């Protein structure tokens, strides 16, 4: 059932370094249109560097292999082309909720910048629709506020809105809930999934939290020391993990039980 799906992203034999340490060695991964792929790994496993490599961040130096998004080879694109690609084709949401916007300038002005950078005009309606889905009440008031005045949960929701507003085909999420409380994290996740359904976006979600991955992922890839040690359907991987590391990872997660 996976084979006939259209491939949106192809990572083949990628080796890359980040700040003098080669963090990814020969990773190959295919991502299919419309699916939610979770990459689970601990800190230092290279999962964040992989995300940076996909959106051609210049702090990552690719040594081997390539990343192709639809027909474009991302690793060879020039800065101008990368700028055009990011935002309307590939979206990015970061871990720090206040990492999406300049904290001291008004949110609507910064949305205008995003639109203007892609040759589009400020489309207030579009933003308000997305705010609605994300459960943000009173959008007009929010648009006039400055990010530093908002709580973590609200900031992250606006970051999600900013990613979705240009309706990207592929959305990269780098630990977007680890800075939030558990309850708020669950709400944000459901709202994100709602938007994904509406726009049929493909999502690559990087997290260290296996439990979270279980809730939303179609497929889960486990990363350890720069390699993908296992990649399979979410339900299969949890029921009978093949790789030793995955087994230990699953057993280490604290269970909610009464002593």
């Amino acid at each position, binding site marked *: 059932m996976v084979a006939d799906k259209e491939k949106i992203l192809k990572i083949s034999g990628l080796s890359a370094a980040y700040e003098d340490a080669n963090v990814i060695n020969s990773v190959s991964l295919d991502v299919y249109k419309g699916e939610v792929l979770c990459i689970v790994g*601990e*800190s230092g496993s290279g999962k964040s560097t992989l995300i940076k490599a996909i959106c051609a961040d210049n702090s990552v130096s690719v040594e081997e292999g390539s990343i192709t998004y639809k027909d474009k080879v991302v690793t060879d694109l020039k800065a101008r082309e990368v700028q055009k690609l990011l935002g309307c084709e590939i979206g990015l949401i970061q871990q720090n909720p206040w990492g999406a916007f300049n904290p001291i300038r008004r949110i609507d002005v910064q949305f205008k910048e995003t639109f203007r950078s892609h040759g589009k005009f400020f489309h207030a309606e579009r933003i308000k629709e997305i705010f609605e889905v994300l459960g943000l009440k009173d959008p007009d008031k929010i648009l006039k506020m400055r990010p530093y005045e908002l709580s*973590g949960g609200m900031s992250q929701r606006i970051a999600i809105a900013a990613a979705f507003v240009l309706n990207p085909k592929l959305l990269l999420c780098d630990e977007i809930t680890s800075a939030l409380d*558990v309850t*708020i994290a*669950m709400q944000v996740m459901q709202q994100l999934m709602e938007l994904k359904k509406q726009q049929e976006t493909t999502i690559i979600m990087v997290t260290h939290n296996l439990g*979270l991955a279980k809730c939303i992922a179609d497929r889960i890839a486990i990363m350890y020391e720069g390699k993908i040690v296992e990649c399979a359907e979410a339900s299969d991987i949890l029921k009978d993990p093949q790789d030793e590391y995955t087994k230990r990872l699953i057993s280490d997660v604290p*269970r*909610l039980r*009464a002593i």
Partner: protein
Amino acid sequence: MDIILEGKKLNKSFKTGEKKTQVLCDVDFFLKEGEVLGIVGESGSGKSTLLRVASGLEKPDSGELLYKGRDYTGSSPRQTGEFLQILFQDAESSFDPRMTMERSIMEAGRGKKDKEELLKLVKMAGLDEELLKRKPGKLSGGQCQRMAIVRAFYSGAEILLCDEMTSALDVSTQAQVMQIMQRLKKEGKLSAVFVSHDIALVSEICDRIMVMKDGRCVEEGETPEVIGSPKDDHTKELIESARKQSIG
């Protein structure tokens, strides 16, 4: 087992610019010897502030703090350091970057220079002796936290206050650290207050659980009761989200 640490009607508020925010409102807590009390709550619930007030690092606006019945409300960290130690979320920054681990730990020993005991504790924490010579920058997060535990016990403190001590660690390292805590608990050497936002983790190690929300204690009781049949809505919500994410 009698009560060794107790807080009554604790209040605390912070003044940022003109507006005053009330962070603790009439909070009570107690800890019995050899027992681990878990405090769960979301960010901004006041759980860390409660810990800092209990440790003497911050003064409560009102309320009482007792150690084995003796009132130590206004006392300085120097005095509270006699009977308690605090473990921080960012373990690496709880050690001076310029000093080797050994010197930092010896510093907490209040003049005690007992290499044997130090080596015994290091072995107990499953760490290699070599690490004592290194500076915190060269150790991983997990190793630093375990060194912090060694320091706590080396200082002879009876009570451990753990402020989100494993939240910054990976799941596997967190598991290693919690194993040590479990072993200490079994050997009856550990009476601790364990603050965390992860209710699953708290349920694994703590005998009693206190749930906090917006500076108040909304629920308190033995772990099986609180987890099994939570009375407060917020506790229910916490347990529900945890259950959703549990691997089962």
